[in-house]
């Protein structure tokens, strides 16, 4: 287990090099000079030269790459636009994204796993049809459309909730009111796929012999479903949820855009539009590493759920 973890973590190094090289290449292909974007069209040649010197934009490309990597590791990489440390800028935006993501994930898990279990146990019942149709609907509706509809209903018509923006930490009333709609919208898509996967993997498990044995032994139905059924169906469900978490940080871009939520996804998108090379570089690398580490944690968690799974 330990050696497996170390091996996976060591694999991060080539991955890191690959991603950073790719992103750097794409950034260098992008037309336009960041110095001019930063200073505006009317800047004097002197000022432009000075900025180029400051951000090492006039050096040959391999040197620029080396410098950027070095600065990232020493924690000195500064955003061209914000003139602040990249890690600090990303960290500041990470909190709203985490609030949004965790509350959406919580909603999705609390609603969709029980819904999936009930649909699987009571197959072909009215509840099953209803929840499966709802899941199909949730998979097919664009996030931004749900967002716009909710805004129209609750903000424009009923005037109950604010239409957009971030109201502060989630434990304050204002923050909570701002959080409800984006979290709901983001959780819809997660709910859809989690319900479907829970149902299908529960259906597979319920057919197994050990479920029949447990029932024959006289274990109560609830225990059979939860302890014997769900526990064994948990691996695909965890894979799905892990994927959702890993994708959350960047995948919430659309939700964040609709609700003007100051999250990491929007920060990265704006940085690309602003030609803020250093921030894009830092953002993408940080997000990719989070993705890889979350996936690793999910893989390790399999062994907890199912002790049969071992990593050599």
């Amino acid at each position: 287990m330990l050696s497996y973890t170390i091996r996976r973590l060591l694999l991060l190094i080539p991955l890191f090099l690959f991603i950073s090289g790719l992103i750097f290449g794409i950034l260098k292909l992008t037309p336009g000079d960041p110095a001019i974007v930063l200073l505006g069209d009317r800047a004097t040649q002197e000022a432009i030269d000075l900025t180029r010197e400051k951000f090492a934009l006039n050096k040959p490309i391999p040197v620029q790459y080396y410098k950027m990597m070095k600065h990232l590791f020493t924690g000195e990489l500064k955003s061209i636009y914000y003139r602040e440390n990249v890690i600090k800028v990303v960290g500041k935006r990470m909190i709203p994204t985490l609030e949004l993501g965790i509350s959406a994930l919580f909603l999705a898990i609390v609603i969709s796993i029980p819904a999936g279990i009930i649909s699987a146990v009571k197959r072909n019942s009215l509840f099953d049809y209803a929840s499966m149709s709802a899941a199909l609907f949730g998979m097919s509706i664009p996030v931004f459309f749900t967002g716009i509809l909710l805004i129209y209903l609750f903000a424009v018509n009923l005037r109950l909730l604010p239409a957009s923006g971030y109201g502060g930490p989630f434990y304050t009333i204002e923050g909570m009111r701002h959080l409800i709609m984006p979290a709901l919208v983001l959780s819809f898509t997660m709910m859809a796929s989690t319900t479907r996967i829970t149902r299908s993997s529960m259906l597979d498990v319920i057919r197994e012999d050990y479920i029949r044995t447990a029932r024959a032994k006289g274990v109560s139905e609830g225990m059979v479903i939860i302890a014997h059924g769900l526990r064994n169906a948990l691996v695909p469900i965890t894979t799905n949820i892990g994927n959702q978490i890993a994708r959350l940080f960047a995948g919430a871009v659309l939700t964040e855009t609709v609700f003007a939520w100051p999250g990491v996804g929007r920060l990265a998108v704006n940085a690309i539009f602003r030609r803020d090379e250093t921030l894009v570089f830092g953002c993408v690398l940080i997000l990719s590493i989070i993705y890889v580490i979350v996936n690793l944690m999910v893989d390790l968690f399999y062994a907890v759920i199912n002790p049969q799974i071992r990593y050599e």
Partner: protein
Amino acid sequence: MWRLKTFYLFIISFILLVWIFPWAKKDLIAYAVFACLTAGLLVLSIVISRAANDTDQIKSNASMMWKRLNKNKSAMGGMIVLIVLCYLAILAPFISPHDSLASDWGALSQGISRAHWLGTDDMGRDIFSRNLFGIRVALGIGISAVFLNTLIGTFLGLLAGYYGKKTDNIIMRLLEAWNSIPFILLAIAIMAALGTGIWKLILIVSLSNIMAFARIIRGSVLLVKESDFISAAKVIGIPDRLIILRHVIPNCISPILVLASLSLGETILVIAGLSFLGLGIQPPMPSLGAMLSNGQQYLHENILMSVVPGVTILLIVLSFNLFGDGVRDALDSRLID
């Protein structure tokens, strides 16, 4: 029963073809595509009705699949909606009552009226016409992106699965690395670097999903590779290229089909999302995503501006998903999902 249906279909499509022909000068290509699609559907339905009548023969795989798909009501519903949407998309220049780009300055941001069936947007453009052209763009780009995606993903999966060992390792590790970069950011960065355009959009979107394809095709290639007929073919001395073409691909065709039909809906959602962010299809060309993002700004004035394109996207993706689920059940591919 089948013959009768085919007969009516033939009559109706013939009337449609003749009826629309006088307008064909307006958009000859659209008319040609329409004629080809109609002829193709007719031939297909005749072939199917023949196959349905031949009860004596041993059922081929395709006709078995068709029978199962035919029984699945929701999948058939999805398919019919899709065919109607395809016709609407192809015939958009004939159907749309107004020019999708022309502004009617006398009717800005209006509701439903006789002149503008679904109202007008903030620039006085007819929403119904724009929507029709939006369907056209969404379907066209979505289907071509999935097609390209299938080609690339299948190719990589075949290579990785068939040659194994080092090739497998290199391809799969590279794909994992590619997959770990958040797709939307990557797409935006590439679009910023290369500039926007329909072909670039298709290429970028098609690269988003290759991981899923390659992984599943690799899995089924690994299964097929173990079978006796492959070793037999190898022993006879058939070159690898021919083994892959004649024996491996035909045996992997069902997961490829299922994956392609399942990923259509998702791809269209991704394209709409990119257009919503202002990176996909560029204005003034009508696109459903951009119409929605425009509609959000005028939410107080005209809800139709966001409801119409939103419902259209929902309808397209929903019918693709229904159809994809049906194909998966019909092919009984337990490998996926």
